[in-house]
């Protein structure tokens, strides 16, 4: 009996075009739009050592402080990973200009009485070079003033400058490159999981005699409707799970979104998200006596609100929401789903991941318990 109902539930849900649109097609389309919107931004977030040139002028040869500083930021150390700059010295201005024109370097510095930065285009690398030269000019000016007043502190100050520059390059200390875009994609997966609510709602409505004629017919069958409901839910969760895996596959292989390489945990987080989404829809379906349209409206509104707070529209919202109201991190299922992927990607430990997944399964159980309380009654006061 379980398989009979399970197989027909699978068939009917897969053939429901509206359901498949919301649970699969819509997230894929939205993911593609994200891909188009973020395609120009993706390169800027991944940091590589910046190739720069220095013209070997007399002023440069004489400026040991600048040489020491450049050497400090061009040196790889264990904590900072790759160095900030890779410096190439050029004998003349022409050689440096040619290297810049050929694209071998992002820019070059020429020193006479002051530092001159030459670049051909704007971008993250050029901005960093500009920030570096500005910072050096300010710092060296300050140091010159200090040395003029107290000559014995010169060597100590040079050390401070080197340390400061090392500190600037520490942003590369994480295993994975920081990427705000991922927040959007994780929130998108969370939204897709929450859209599993449509499946959950449909399963409830199909077996509730006071909601659909089909429910009345099923109710009259010589079977406990909770058993029929359970097999329908299994089918719904499976469909939702497959939809999410297709979405993740699309994001990973077509849009080249990096999810890390912890496949087992990704599958677990996806499953927890699907269970939460489907059970949430079942709860809305069971609690509300309104028509399908109203229930659909409730589900869309709540799912979008949860996804918004998880950073679907503006990534910063995720952090601001949790900062303003920390409990949101634990009571917003969409945030829990997105954060599970986030934790997997950025952290080496699994504490945060398992906390999120635990909460998701907890919510699923809570939602199903509420559904059970509503559906356990066998007959109705009115239809």
């Amino acid at each position, binding site marked *: *009996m379980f398989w*009979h*109902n399970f197989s*027909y539930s699978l*068939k*009917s*849900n897969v*053939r*429901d075009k509206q359901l498949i649109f919301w649970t699969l097609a819509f997230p894929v389309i939205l993911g593609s739009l994200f891909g188009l919107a973020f395609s120009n931004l993706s390169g800027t977030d991944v940091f590589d050592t910046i190739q720069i040139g220095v013209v070997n002028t007399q002023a440069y040869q004489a400026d040991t402080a600048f040489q020491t500083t450049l050497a400090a930021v061009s040196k790889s150390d264990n904590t900072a990973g790759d160095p900030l700059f890779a410096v190439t010295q050029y004998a003349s201005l022409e050689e440096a200009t040619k290297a810049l024109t050929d694209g071998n370097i992002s820019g070059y510095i020429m020193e006479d009485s002051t530092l001159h930065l030459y670049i051909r285009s704007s971008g993250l690398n050029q901005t960093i070079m500009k920030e570096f030269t500005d910072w050096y000019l300010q710092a060296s000016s300050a140091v010159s003033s200090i040395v003029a007043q107290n000559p014995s502190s010169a060597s100590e100050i040079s050390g401070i400058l080197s340390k400061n520059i090392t500190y600037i390059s520490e942003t590369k200390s994480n295993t994975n490159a920081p990427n705000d875009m991922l927040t959007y994609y994780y929130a998108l997966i969370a939204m897709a999981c929450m859209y599993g609510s449509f499946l959950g709602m449909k399963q409830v409505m*199909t077996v509730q*005699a006071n909601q*659909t*004629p*089909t429910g*009345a*017919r*099923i*109710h*009259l*069958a*010589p*079977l*406990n409707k909770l058993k*029929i409901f359970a097999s329908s839910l299994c089918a719904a969760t499976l469909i939702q799970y497959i939809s999410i895996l297709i979405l993740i596959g699309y994001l990973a292989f077509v849009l080249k979104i990096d999810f890390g390489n912890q496949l087992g945990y990704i599958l677990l987080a996806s499953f927890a998200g699907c269970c939460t989404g489907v059970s949430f829809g079942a709860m809305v379906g069971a609690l509300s006596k309104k028509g399908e349209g109203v229930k659909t409206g409730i589900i869309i509104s709540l799912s979008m609100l949860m996804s918004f707070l998880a950073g679907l529209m503006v990534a910063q919202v995720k952090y601001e929401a949790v900062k303003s109201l920390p409990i949101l991190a634990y009571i917003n299922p969409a945030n829990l789903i997105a954060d599970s992927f986030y934790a997997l990607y950025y952290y080496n430990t699994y504490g945060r991941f398992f906390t999120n997944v635990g909460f998701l399964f907890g919510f699923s159980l809570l939602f199903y318990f509420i559904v059970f309380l509503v559906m356990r009654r*066998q*007959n*109705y*006061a*009115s*239809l």
Partner: protein
Amino acid sequence: MLPELVPFYHDRDSKKHMTFVTISQDICHWDMMLRFDTLKTTKRVLYRRRKRQGGNMIVKVSNLVKRYGDLIALDHFKLDVAEGEIFGLLGPNGSGKTTAINCILSLLTFDKGEIEVFDKKMTPSSYDLKKDIGVIMQNVAVIEELTVYENIDFFCGLYVPDKEIRKNLVKEAIDFVGLGDFTKFYPKKLSGGLLRRLNIACGIAHKPRLIILDEPTVAVDPQSRNNILEGIVRLNREGATVIYTSHYMEEVEQICTRIGIMDKGRIVAMGTNEELKGMIRVGEKISIEFLAADPKDYVEFVESMPYIAAVEVQDRTMLIKTERGHNGLSTILTELQTKSIKVGRVYCELPTLNDVFLEITGKELRDGKEK
């Protein structure tokens, strides 16, 4: 000059009651009347046979009370349905037919009363009883995303787990409702009549002993309606007991062996078609179209004739009711001819269940309006 009249016998055994139809009536109407006549003959034979068998009570309902707030939907409702019957529950919309059915099926809670099906108390978890009950609800209850075959197989599967047995049952159900050419169609591709047939197939595929049909012919074209009614008689002939609710008196008259008339949540009259009609004063209802003269001028003249119960005029037509046991058509027509009155269409019909309902409750059966 009288139009040519063709007699139509309501009861072929006695040939007592006849209706005259004019030759201008179309063939379809005539064909439909013949079909109804066949159904009626069949059901009488069946009813006599069941009566001889003695008939166990399949459904017993006593003192059922159901309230919706202050509204009493069922007021000490009583019902006994014997095995082999086609029991018709007739009443206007809102009289409590569907509520009664839903209570019998344990879909609805009720405030008071007892319900037994197959001699056992019916509860929501009476699965052993439910497996022998087939229900066809007023609203079509099928799954839009499954084909005709899949729908029947799915619902049949809730009763019959064995796949091989079910395969045959589904095939029989498809043949029974005549959906053989539509097995791969989705419900939304079916016409209203075919959809109703699918609805019936889903309810009867598991071959239940008791079939409950709640207004299955609402919004169905005449041809599909006939198919459905014939199907119900066939199901009954194959051994199923049927409870049939409707507010269409013609349908109930055609197929039901016994009829209960409902009003305001209780049964106000119960019996066979003939027994119910025997409860009222009216014998025949005669309708005469006046071609030239104004029928209002002859009301008193007709009223003065013997055994006339009532006379009414609607436009150019005079509606005459005779007293029960007296046939006045030929007398009236002869008298009108003596006055050289030219008449057009002439109809004569026996009292309907609507007349029974009207006389008992003072309301029209079809719309429940006070008369």
